[in-house]
């Protein structure tokens, strides 16, 4: 594997990635341990478990966690495995309960994971061999919440979430802090499995403005992408951080406010900082697509769902959950402004459902392309095929007066963000 990584590193120096990285089981084993066991992984939005006793089941790769809201109102992220024989206590994806009872031997745990009951405990166990304080459900090694977003990290020694997010917070806040009360999840996450590698999705959302005009041209015909053409990201801006990349469209009548109505744009102006608002004076839209390393992506964009209604903005969070090399479970959430009208939420949801999610007219063609790439990557010969990742080099220079953090490039048909993603990916594998 070290040889393989050295070869990939040499390729990256030339701005090339070998096709085989999208379907390599050995590489996947490395990603499991070195990326997903050490980086902050997104699990859930707090609005998914608003009430005491609410719980959901979430995953970091194959590790299942119960995310619960306990009596004190706190969020817990607990490994979904009984401490006696390891049985996965929670078989539902979602629900409300007072406790978790194992159906094997009846051990009972509270919403905070504390061990509450062991049948015949005093008769069967010596006091010091089963102290209740030591045998509760095991929490994820690190759990932190930022802006209602619940993350976990399997590495006790990981940096704090805020440190990890770093300057990415400046841009993610455009998604989460438009209004005073922020976002809430509308409905439940959609889940489906595609024969495509997680990195293709992360790579697409981090910086691929280039694919829109060809991949999504049918949605312009259909009207779900309410733009005159698919080049709206071309003359936009791409911003690159070490573990985050984000794209902005060029400002026009549609891609100014991403179809947020004036009433919400007014709140945006109240809720964002001065330097954040200066971004909107740069001739670009609100941030549209982005990826936070490793596998959390965001998209905020306008969608059309009726000729008689104006386009509505949709906001989606997505986790590309790797299941194997070249196999990914997509988790797709629709989020809306919590304090907006039911009518507006409905419009945003309609715009989302025709654009993204399992039936989304844009989503379908993205995943189709990623699956076709993954299939091509399985060959013995094709695995070594170098792919060109040099777009924008020696063509685009960082903008001088960009008011936000990171390097900003004056085009979103660019690959600075993808190159940063791959450098981060490689650095983590070599760490």
């Amino acid at each position, binding site marked *: 594997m070290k040889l393989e990584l050295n070869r990939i590193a040499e390729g990256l120096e030339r701005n090339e990635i070998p096709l085989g990285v999208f379907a390599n089981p050995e590489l996947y084993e490395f990603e499991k341990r070195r990326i997903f066991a050490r980086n902050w992984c997104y699990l859930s939005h707090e609005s998914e478990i608003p009430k005491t006793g609410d719980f959901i089941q979430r995953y970091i790769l194959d590790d299942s966690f119960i995310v619960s809201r306990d009596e004190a109102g706190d969020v817990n992220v607990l490994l979904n495995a009984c401490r006696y024989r390891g049985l996965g206590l929670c078989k539902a994806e979602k629900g409300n309960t007072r406790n978790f009872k194992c159906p094997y031997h009846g051990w009972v745990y509270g919403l905070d994971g504390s061990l509450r009951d062991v049948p015949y405990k005093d008769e069967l166990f010596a006091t010091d061999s089963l102290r209740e304080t030591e045998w509760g459900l095991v929490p994820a090694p690190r759990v932190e919440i930022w802006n209602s977003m619940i993350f976990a990290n399997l590495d006790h020694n990981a940096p704090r979430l805020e440190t990890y997010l770093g300057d990415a917070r400046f841009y993610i806040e455009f998604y989460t802090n438009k209004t005073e009360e922020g976002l809430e999840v509308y409905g439940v996450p959609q889940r489906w*499995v595609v024969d495509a590698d997680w990195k293709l999705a992360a790579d697409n959302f981090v910086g691929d403005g280039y694919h829109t005009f060809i991949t999504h041209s*049918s949605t312009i015909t259909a009207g779900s992408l309410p733009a005159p053409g698919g080049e709206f990201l071309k003359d936009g801006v791409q911003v690159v951080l070490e573990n985050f990349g984000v794209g902005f469209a060029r400002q026009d009548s549609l891609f100014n406010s991403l179809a947020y109505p004036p009433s919400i744009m007014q709140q945006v102006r109240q809720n964002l900082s001065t330097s954040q608002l200066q971004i909107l004076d740069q001739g670009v839209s609100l941030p549209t697509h982005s990826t936070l390393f490793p596998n959390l992506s965001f998209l905020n964009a306008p969608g059309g769902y009726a000729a008689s209604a104006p386009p509505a903005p949709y906001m989606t969070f997505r986790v590309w959950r790797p299941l194997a090399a070249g196999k990914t479970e997509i988790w797709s959430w629709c989020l809306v402004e919590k304090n907006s009208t039911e009518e507006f939420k409905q419009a945003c949801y309609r715009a989302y*459902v025709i654009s993204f999610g399992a*039936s989304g007219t844009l989503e379908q063609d993205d995943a189709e392309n990623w699956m076709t790439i993954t299939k091509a990557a399985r060959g013995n010969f094709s695995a070594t095929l170098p792919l060109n990742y040099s777009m924008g080099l020696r063509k685009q220079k960082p903008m001088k007066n960009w008011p936000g953090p990171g390097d900003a490039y004056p085009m979103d048909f660019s690959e600075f963000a993808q190159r940063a993603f791959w450098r981060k990916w490689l650095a983590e594998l070599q760490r």
Partner: protein
Amino acid sequence: MPVSGRTITLELRQEIEDFLYLEAELLDRCAFEQWLQLFTEDASYRMPVRTTHERRLQDREFDESFGHFDETREMLGMRVRRLSSRTAWAEDPPSRTRHFVTNLRIRATTKSDEILATTNLLVYRNRGDSPQHDLLSAERHDLLRRTESGWKISERRIYLDQATLGTLNLSIFL
């Protein structure tokens, strides 16, 4: 939907069966424009997202306000227009589907021109040169309306027998 005790005649049953079989045939032949004509102007077409719940919370399995599909007739039309655009990559080459429609149960409604048809649906789906196939199993609740140009679908609810979808996307119709 209010249900009435009116008798369902064999003749009516035959009409509904023929209608649903024709609809399935149009989908399997990718005759989407013709298929769209089978919906009323005010039609809705929905597939609520399903989430696994414990037995005691089974009534929460389907989120009726959040769907994989939640379409007006106009939105269905947008999807059909996309499929005929020559750049709908996810369906080029097209999926090979076979819709099996069975276990028809018909109930009269309080409106004389509308009936409720519940069916079991099994969709076989195959793509490209792969010998693999996906199977989607569902119960469909259709509100059908008799119009001057024959029966039309005025409401369709699709209840999938799956929480995590076992197919690569929903670029097909059920």
